[in-house]
């Protein structure tokens, strides 16, 4: 290597380049060749190219439990498409079938009907042996953590590598990376019973990531945690998604979780997906009643007394702004143009995955025909308008 002659000395995917082993290599290079500068270039192009590729495709999946007295249709004709790099949220009340659905992905439940493609392979057609190989590439974390109580933190993280036949030296190295990632380096030799809920889930995450999975399934992973710990765990998941390009599927009954980290969402009710799409779209314009009630759990509610009057010169509206139109003064333009008054009752702006979504509840007052025109004007400017009535 000559001075003034830059070249790439390392090219690999980001998780490799940032591993401790690689860094060591650069350091020795630096010591040997004095005057040579190593510039770390962050190009995660492999990740970007891969992004958008299909990761999980659930097609027409149904699951029926046949009991002694009755049959339960836990899933009915579910179609979901998760792309690589997505954080895909599945939200629903308990009994909506979301847990059954996610468990079909690694076949902890056998779907009665339909196909499930993970990375292009149909998991419903795998033999037992192929299924076990596939499961090693699908990490899973659980509501109650499900750690082995007789093993230390290190032992728990080592478990998936042991069953995969990873040598003890490689296990040690991977262990250090994982403990660093989940910030539990000081708890290596501690038993799960001595850990807090958040720490247990961190061990669960490290364990799920041990074999470099393509997908991480989270089955109510934060439901047993307090709000503060929930945020920390979600932040960690987000960080993993960004750093490793890992596809994450999250099952939850809390819309807060979806709002916090998901890029896409599917809403389930009675074993069916009633609505799905980008989180920002679903939040800005929920169409199904279940979705609306979920969205309302994280947005604000209008007090009931505002609904009570029957005055034709007044109209109560919920306006949703999304993206660029949230940045324009559309409301004040409308007021000037149509000679109506707007009384803002509620308002809020949320950041949903780089997308700005504004919500306003306003009471327009003025002549009825002007109000109609004003609403038309808003709609023309891509503002979602919903008339609120009792």
């Amino acid at each position, binding site marked *: 290597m000559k001075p003034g002659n830059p070249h790439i000395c390392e090219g690999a995917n980001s998780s490799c380049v940032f591993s401790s082993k690689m860094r060591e290599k650069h350091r020795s290079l630096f010591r040997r060749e004095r005057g040579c500068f190593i510039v770390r270039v962050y190009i995660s192009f492999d990740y970007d190219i891969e992004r958008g590729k299909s990761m999980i495709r659930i097609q027409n999946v149904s699951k029926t439990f046949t009991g002694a007295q009755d049959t339960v249709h836990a899933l009915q004709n579910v179609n979901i498409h998760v792309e690589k790099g997505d954080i895909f949220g599945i939200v629903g009340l308990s009994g909506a079938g979301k847990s059954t659905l996610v468990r079909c992905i690694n076949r902890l439940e056998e779907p009665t009907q339909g196909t499930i493609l993970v990375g292009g392979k149909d998991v419903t057609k795998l033999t037992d042996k192929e299924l*076990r190989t596939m499961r090693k590439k699908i990490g*899973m974390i659980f509501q109650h953590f499900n750690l082995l109580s007789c093993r230390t933190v290190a032992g728990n993280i080592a*478990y998936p590598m042991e*069953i995969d036949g990873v040598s003890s030296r490689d296990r040690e190295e991977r262990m250090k990376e994982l403990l660093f990632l989940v910030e539990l380096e000081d708890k290596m030799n501690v038993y799960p019973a001595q850990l807090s809920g958040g720490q247990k889930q961190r061990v669960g995450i490290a364990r799920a990531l041990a074999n470099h999975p393509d997908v991480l399934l989270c089955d109510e992973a934060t439901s047993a945690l307090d709000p503060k710990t929930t945020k920390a765990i979600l932040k960690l998941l987000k960080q993993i998604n960004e750093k490793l390009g890992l596809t994450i599927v999250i099952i939850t009954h809390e819309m807060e979780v979806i709002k916090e980290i998901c890029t896409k969402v599917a809403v389930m009710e009675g074993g069916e997906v009633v609505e799905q799409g980008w989180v920002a779209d679903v939040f800005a314009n929920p169409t199904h009643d279940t979705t609306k009630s979920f969205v309302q759990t994280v947005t604000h509610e209008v007090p009931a007394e505002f609904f009570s009057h029957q005055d034709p010169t007044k109209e109560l509206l919920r306006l949703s702004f999304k993206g660029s139109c949230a940045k324009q003064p559309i409301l004040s333009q409308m007021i000037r143009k149509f000679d109506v008054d707007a009384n803002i009752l509620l308002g809020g702006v949320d950041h949903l995955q780089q997308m700005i979504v504004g919500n306003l509840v306003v009471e327009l007052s003025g002549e009825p025909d002007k109000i109609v025109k004003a609403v038309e004007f808003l709609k023309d400017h891509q503002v979602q308008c919903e008339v609120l009535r009792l």
Partner: protein
Amino acid sequence: MTAENIKLMINLLPIETWNTIYMVLSATLIAVLMGLPIGILLVISEKNHIREMPLINGILSFIVNVGRSFPFIILMIAIIPFTRFIVGKSLGTTAAIVPLAIAAAPFVARVIETSLKEIDKGIIEAAVSMGSNTWQIIVKVLLPEALPSIVLGITLTIVNLVGYSAMAGVMGGGGLGKVAIQYGYQRYNGFLMTITVIELIILVQLIQWIGNYISKSINKK
């Protein structure tokens, strides 16, 4: 308390205590070797467990129940031909190990089954989700997770076998039971009887204490 009694005690007790320990521990070892696989099979072949096999589960369960319904004294006599086949004779301390082990094996199987059933289903599910095969789940998850409970179960088995081993005195087996029957019961030696009983009490207490201690020290829950 006469000098003769003291002499008898010194002559008999150490060797017969050893005989009891020898019979009980050998029988326990054999019973665990037989009962452990049956216990594991009973659990994993259950509905919704890792290897659902209703037929095998039903058959095994029936066999275990049959084994457990024999009163020990009858079992001991009933299997004399089998004992003779195995050890070459039907009398004596070593011969008593055979019926003791056979009586304890179904008991051990149930003890193991109960211990394994205590394990949180979620832990097994997590192991399945990570791609473990059946053998890995048994060896790396089920047995280690249930070990504290299994140790207590085996302690229970040993204590039961101490009781059964006294009955082995009837068919010429050695041990503390023989002392109690031959000297205490047949020769009206109240002193020796009392001493034997006291020793048995101490023995059982000791076994239980050791079992509890081991179980507690390996329990990380």
